């Protein structure tokens, strides 16, 4: 891509976000009794206190992990949607270690996170394996696997970790040593955000500076060329899914150990789906994932704050996300302007 075309993509993405926000404003105007207040809270609420800024950063952490995970899997042109299940299942794996083991402080969460990552990588690896062995669509199998993760996970919690004295279906309390420390006072922002930052760098280096990442990108752009060049495409496909799953599983574990005292999710938390949006906004480039994750986290927290003190429900974020995806995926959106730019460049 030339510089001007890259700029054009930034402009296009910015315009998409602007349009979706404008539509959000229109919805607020139509639905709310107090549109001025609702808009204000939605747009600047996340910035009005340290606690709210903290909320945005907390929300970013899981999105960074799932965004990175999906970026790696999509880079190989494998549309594995298993990040959701890997996130959930990785957290369950971590919960077992956090509840049952006794380890020194730093080591305890490290072991739990790595264990959660391992479970996540097996979970996302299976659709990859089914794809290369029998050609089954990773899209379909990973979607189905998410349900397996959900119900099997709840079964494990219910039968092996459940605290019968608690009022709901939740696990026993985690051992204190397993938790991730808070790093910003008066907020719940935890050490996980630093791990996420390191993972952004590692993932970027992996994709752009190692031979494994190179193979994944070649497969993602032209798998027949990869095969012709002698690249073992099966192995690279599975590798990309395993690594994506590992990052998602890590993310689930970190979210759990940083934000909770017990395992208490009753539903799939949805971060895997949002991770897909993050990856789409970031064009599968780990370097842009933080920007996309920040934007989505900001929007969600804004909607949360708004719904708490006005009559607007926070689910309307889903509408904005939907519009963003449709416009970005629509390749012909602004294609005329793009062509004009190309023409201008070629003429000069």
């Amino acid at each position, binding site marked *: 891509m030339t510089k001007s075309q890259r700029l054009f993509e930034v402009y296009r993405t910015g315009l998409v976000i602007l349009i979706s926000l404008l539509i959000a404003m229109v919805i607020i105007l139509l639905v709310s009794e107090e549109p001025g207040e609702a808009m204000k809270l939605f747009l600047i609420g996340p910035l009005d206190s340290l606690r709210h800024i903290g909320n945005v950063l907390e929300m970013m952490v899981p999105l960074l992990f799932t965004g990175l995970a999906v970026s790696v899997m999509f880079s190989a042109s494998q549309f594995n949607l298993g990040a959701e299940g890997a996130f959930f299942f990785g957290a369950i794996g971590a919960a077992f270690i956090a509840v049952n083991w006794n380890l020194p402080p730093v080591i305890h969460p490290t072991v739990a996170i790595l264990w959660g990552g391992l479970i996540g990588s097996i979970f996302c690896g299976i659709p990859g394996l089914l794809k290369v062995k029998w050609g089954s669509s990773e899209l379909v199998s990973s979607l189905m696997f998410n349900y397996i993760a959900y119900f099997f996970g709840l079964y494990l919690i219910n039968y092996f970790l459940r605290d019968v004295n608690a009022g709901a279906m939740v696990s026993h309390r985690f051992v204190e040593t397993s938790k991730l420390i808070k790093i910003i006072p008066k907020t719940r922002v935890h050490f996980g955000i630093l791990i996420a930052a390191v993972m952004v760098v590692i993932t970027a280096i992996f994709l752009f500076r190692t031979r494994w990442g190179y193979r994944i990108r070649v497969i993602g752009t*032209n798998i027949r060329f990869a095969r012709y060049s*002698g690249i073992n495409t099966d192995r690279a496909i599975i590798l990309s899914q395993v690594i994506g799953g590992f990052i998602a599983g890590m993310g689930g574990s970190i979210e759990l150990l940083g934000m909770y005292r017990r395992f208490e999710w009753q539903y799939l938390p949805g971060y895997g789906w949002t991770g897909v949006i993050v990856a789409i906004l970031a064009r599968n480039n780990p370097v842009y994932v933080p920007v996309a994750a920040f934007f989505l986290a900001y929007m969600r927290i804004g909607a949360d704050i708004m719904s708490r003190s006005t009559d607007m429900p926070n689910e309307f974020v889903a509408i904005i996300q939907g519009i963003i995806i449709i416009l970005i995926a629509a390749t012909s959106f602004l294609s005329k302007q793009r062509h004009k730019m190309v023409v201008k460049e070629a003429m000069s």
Partner: protein
Amino acid sequence: MTDEPDAILRMENITKIYPNGIMANKGVNFSIAAGEIHGLVGENGAGKTTLMQILFGLNHPEEGKILLEGKEITIANPNAAIAHGIGMVHQHFMLVPSLSVAENLVLGVEPRKGVSLDLPEAIRTTEALSKKFNLKVDPRSAIRDLPVGTKQKVEILKALHRGARILILDEPTAVLTPQETDELFDELKLLKDQGNTIIFISHKLNEIKALCDRVTVMRAGKSQGVFAVADVTEQDISRLMVGRDVILRVEKSVAKPKKPVLKVQDLMVVNRFRKKAVDDISFTVRQGEILGIAGVEGNGQRELVEALTGLGLYASGDISIGGKDIKKLSIRGIRDLGTSHIPEDRMTYGCAADLSIEMNLLSYTHDHPEYNKNYFLMDINAINEVSNKLVEEYRILCSSPQQEVRRLSGGNIQKVVVAREFSSNPKLIISDQPTRGIDVGATEFIRKRLVTLRDEGCAVLLVSADLNEVMELSDSLIVMYGGKITAYIEDASSISEEALGLYMLGLESQGPEEIRRVCHD
């Protein structure tokens, strides 16, 4: 350009820019007179096809206008073109293989009986047209059973049936044998005598001389002018096309073949239709020789190449490279024996168009120690250095090695492929259509390189549908027809095009003893 009173069609100041930024036409003027055969020549990538696609409504220009009989018209799509009496016969035929000739001919304008196709009427129409224009086809036979030359006749009839008075033929002879070409020319002259106008796109100058009345020469998206064919020589045209004098003769010394590198023994490949695509063939390619495979496309060459490179399977027989049997080897394993492969279709197999030139040059060697700093990280500096060197050595025209391959011209993309494949110290080069669809400069360059590598002791297998190329470049030749070898010509310069054509059409075949001679020990 002077105004011609009898111009039936004029295109004025046509400019077309593709989404990837390539300017295919720059202010092109083009005009044809009624009832002439007008040649349109230029190198591949000169913009001939783009100009004709604009005329046929497949592409839309940024600037310029089209005038038909003096009236300005817009051609939004092929239907509009056909309505204006403009028909096009594409390089790749647009026919339904499972349907009959008559059904293909009337497709879209079917005669009906109630709700169903009136097949007898379609057959009558086909027979009438076939007779009127003297293009002999059997209305009842299925397209897939027909030879290429006949399919082309169906395409021409199809265009005429839709009322075309101006017929565009896009490199119609590229797929034909010399005999079929002669036949086509007779038919086209007849069409002309009946008052039709024909635009004949080609880059073969002898054909232009033999067939056309006038010729428009294009180079790098611009028109170089219109000439009466009788007034110019082939040399004149070629100088206008390329911008300098070209010697398309390959300069090479007599080959000194040594030990065999590639040995193929009783090879059989069965395709997905369970047909024997390669039928029990044996040959060897030795160090320091270029063995050419001539043949009309679709006679087993693709399946053979796929078997040799590991991209496809083979049913029985033995293939050995450098003395090693490749049956159990992966594609990587075959490459590690010193095999390089220039694929027939560079966009499908030869490159990842969305990645940079640099990344494309590395696809085989990316895990070699010289490009990796340690176990984990690749050595970006080493990669930069080598790609800069290759870009320079192979004269790849680009802004930098970081440029996406998609944004290069066809010839430069092919140079990227060739640079990669030639730079890995190959012992055997399987070169499938190495110069298809690229400009003369790049063609010359690649051919010279192949000869140099031969002289350095490489074994080269050359598959090409371009008769000129296969005859000029090869030291020895085999001809494939219907999956079998029909002839082995030890000295490629000793045979004429016509004699080769007979083997290619399967009309003649050497005896098994003569063919056996291609196997060396």
